[in-house]
């Protein structure tokens, strides 16, 4: 195995945001299931589930702005920049897919090399850009509309009515629930199963050195 070195990839605000997000999302999913599928899940009283869902929802919104502000006003904004060359994007994406579908089982090296400004592989990068800057804001928006449909009547009607708002919110809820299972699995594919988890606490990713000498 090649020598490892440490790279500071996850700054403190990102780590705080990440773990607050993780706990909040689990709470949102649990309370959301109880609210949406009444009678099927009974983890707490219905009122408590609604109150907790609303409270944690606002915590998530505040937490999102911590994330947004950090990236918007730091040079780390480059982490979320898109690849503007379609050729490079597709070539690197297919390489990454080949790795996850085949190479990883053959012990081949990950084609993506983590750096401070390129911590995501092309697939991750594209996924997180869509999730964080499109799907999460839509989920917040529909959530706030559903929080008080009377107060936000105009917004609800503009969106197409309560049924449309509710459907979008639930579809995104299903997507995020799936993400909560897939994310830890992919996070366990580091050089050791816990490497990426540790990195999200310490901030330092352990990077394998290139095979050649100095």
């Amino acid at each position: 195995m090649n020598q490892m070195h440490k790279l500071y990839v996850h700054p403190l605000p990102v780590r705080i945001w990440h773990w607050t997000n993780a706990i909040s999302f689990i709470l949102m999913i649990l309370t959301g299931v109880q609210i949406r599928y009444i009678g099927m899940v009974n983890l707490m009283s219905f009122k408590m589930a609604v109150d907790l869902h609303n409270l944690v929802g606002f915590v998530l919104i505040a937490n999102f702005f911590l994330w947004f502000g950090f990236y918007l006003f730091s040079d780390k904004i480059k982490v979320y920049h898109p690849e503007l060359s379609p050729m490079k994007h597709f070539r690197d994406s297919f390489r990454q897919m080949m790795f996850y579908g085949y190479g990883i089982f053959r012990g081949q090296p990950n084609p993506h090399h983590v750096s401070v400004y390129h911590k995501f592989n092309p697939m991750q990068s594209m996924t997180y850009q869509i999730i964080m800057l499109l799907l999460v804001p839509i989920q917040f928006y529909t959530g706030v509309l559903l929080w008080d449909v009377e107060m936000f009547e105009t917004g609800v009607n503009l969106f197409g009515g309560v049924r449309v708002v509710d459907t979008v919110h639930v579809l995104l809820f299903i997507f995020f629930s799936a993400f909560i299972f897939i994310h830890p699995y992919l996070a366990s594919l580091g050089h050791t199963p816990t490497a990426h988890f540790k990195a999200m606490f310490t901030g330092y990713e352990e990077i394998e050195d290139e095979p050649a000498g100095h």
Partner: protein
Amino acid sequence: MSVLTKILVVDDDPVVSKSFDRVLANKGYAVISASNGEEALSKLKNEHYDLVFTDIKMPGISGLEVAEQVKASQPWLPVVIVTGYGSDAYEARAAAAGVSEFLRKPLSPEMIEASTAHALSQRVMTATVAESVEMAAPQIAAASVEQSAEAPAKGSTIKNIALFLAAPFIGLAYIVAMPFVGLGMLAWFGYKAVMKRA
């Protein structure tokens, strides 16, 4: 202010820093060595240096991270990367951090001298402006150094934010196009395989 030009050489191989010392001491430079990234950052925090040469691969913090941290805290201080293994990814990252030069080992004495002169000329240009203003009014000098460090970033701030906000839409376009690109690639490889057999 120190009269001697101080150069920090960061490499876990002591032979490298000795080589720099041999070449540069004769030219009137003070060469100080650090054997790893942590030691280098500690020295840079406590002492004034005019130039930094750093290897990439070292135990602990890598040279690229040293360069990134130096350029973040002292953007005027030139940093030269010295490595025996230069990949495009490393070079791209070094360029993004704003390093002055990316040198590949083995280094000749001429390369060390030329690189030092080149990097210091950049340093002198920045320092001359800052120091002349500093003599007139220290506070204005500090502001101007800060401003000159921020100036190139200002133009790119709008670009950075625009790219950040456009990212999900570009990502969506890639997702929509991906199956077609995949099928196109399969068809192309299939065609090539058939042609090869024929």
